[in-house]
């Protein structure tokens, strides 16, 4: 699903609530029918989230970051999986360079891989195309297509409809904190 809306309409806040980073003032958040607070650790492992902030340790390399977060999520083959994903995103030559030396686009690739690495059942991507070049966009769309085929529920928040268009997503709009099922 693609979520569009004006600046300040609440898209990022919604994504942060859905990712369990923020608590909602009202209402409840459920995953497979269960409140996420009841099984917070399991719920978090089932949700992949990428946002404006990279959610990485800047002094670590991409492979170290991905292996670290993969291990915390319980992935036994975190390093091998990280190597494969970095290769697909064309990042193998930079796998051992600390991410604080990266450009915006390269950092974005690593940040997206962190969200994607556990093959989560819910994927929340806030402006995932920011900083990505054409190759990066095509690779991300391939990842998203695969996720859709696995049955992953994906929410993409983006102002760049052209880049999401190849995925033919359902489009919703957010206005003043309310999601409407039409663009």
């Amino acid at each position, binding site marked *: 699903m693609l979520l569009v809306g004006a600046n300040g309409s609440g898209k990022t806040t919604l994504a942060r609530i859905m990712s369990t980073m923020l608590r909602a003032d009202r209402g409840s958040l459920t995953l497979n029918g269960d409140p996420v607070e009841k099984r917070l650790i399991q719920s978090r492992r089932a949700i992949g989230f990428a946002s404006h902030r990279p959610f990485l340790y800047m002094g670590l390399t991409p492979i170290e970051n991905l292996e*670290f977060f993969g*291990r*915390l999520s319980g992935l036994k083959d975190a390093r091998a999986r990280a190597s494969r994903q970095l290769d697909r995103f064309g990042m193998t030559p930079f796998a051992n360079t600390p991410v604080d030396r990266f450009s915006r686009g390269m950092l974005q690739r690593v940040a997206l891989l962190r969200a994607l690495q556990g093959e989560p059942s819910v994927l929340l991507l806030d402006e995932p195309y920011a900083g990505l070049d054409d190759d990066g966009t095509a690779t991300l769309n391939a990842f998203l297509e695969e996720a859709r085929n696995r049955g992953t529920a994906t929410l993409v928040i983006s102002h760049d409809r052209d880049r999401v268009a190849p995925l033919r997503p359902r489009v919703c709009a957010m206005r003043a904190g309310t999601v409407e099922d039409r663009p």
Partner: protein
Amino acid sequence: MTFLWVTLKDLRLHARDFRFLATLGLFSLSLVLILSFAFGPIFQEPAREASATLWASLFFAGILGLTRALDLESESGGGDAVRLAGADPYSVYLGKTVSSFLLLGALFCLVLPCAAVFFDVGNLAVLPQVAGVAALALIGYAAWGTLFAALARGLKARELLLSVLLFPTLIPIWIGAVKLTHSLWADGTIEPVRDWLKIMAVMDVLGLAMAAWLFEVVQEAGE
């Protein structure tokens, strides 16, 4: 094994931050040098003055280490990503406590010989006991410091809050460390001040137990 991954990650980040390590080392050594000049050149009670200098230096350098560790978690959202990865909160706490303890331990290994040389209290026979006292003191520092650092993480005045919470809590541990080290260097025994050992151990256990109870709540409240 989550806690080992967290410890390894923290140590890697510290090891690559040469400017931070150099600042930490220079700061603690400068304190030793300044206090040795303040107390000297003829020391009245070298054992007392040396132990005060050693622990004052570690106390203030330790807060630099904790503040840096706090910054590493806050910049670019690394700490938030740890939460979102679904890691067991107490394992994360233990990992960070162990890495802080190892950093403080390295600092102790740097400062101890300097304090011993400047104040001429180098009694190698009591070195294992001094190391034991240091272990108790630094476990307490790391245990309480990591808990309070997590509490302060999401706030703008986090360094201030960390100091306000941590300094009073550490007073019993630090007085104990000063008294025990003084007794070891002066008399070669801890018998006259043995009770401080129990107080320090109780404070350490209390810090670790409080974190087991509170760390998850504190971590979630940080946002």
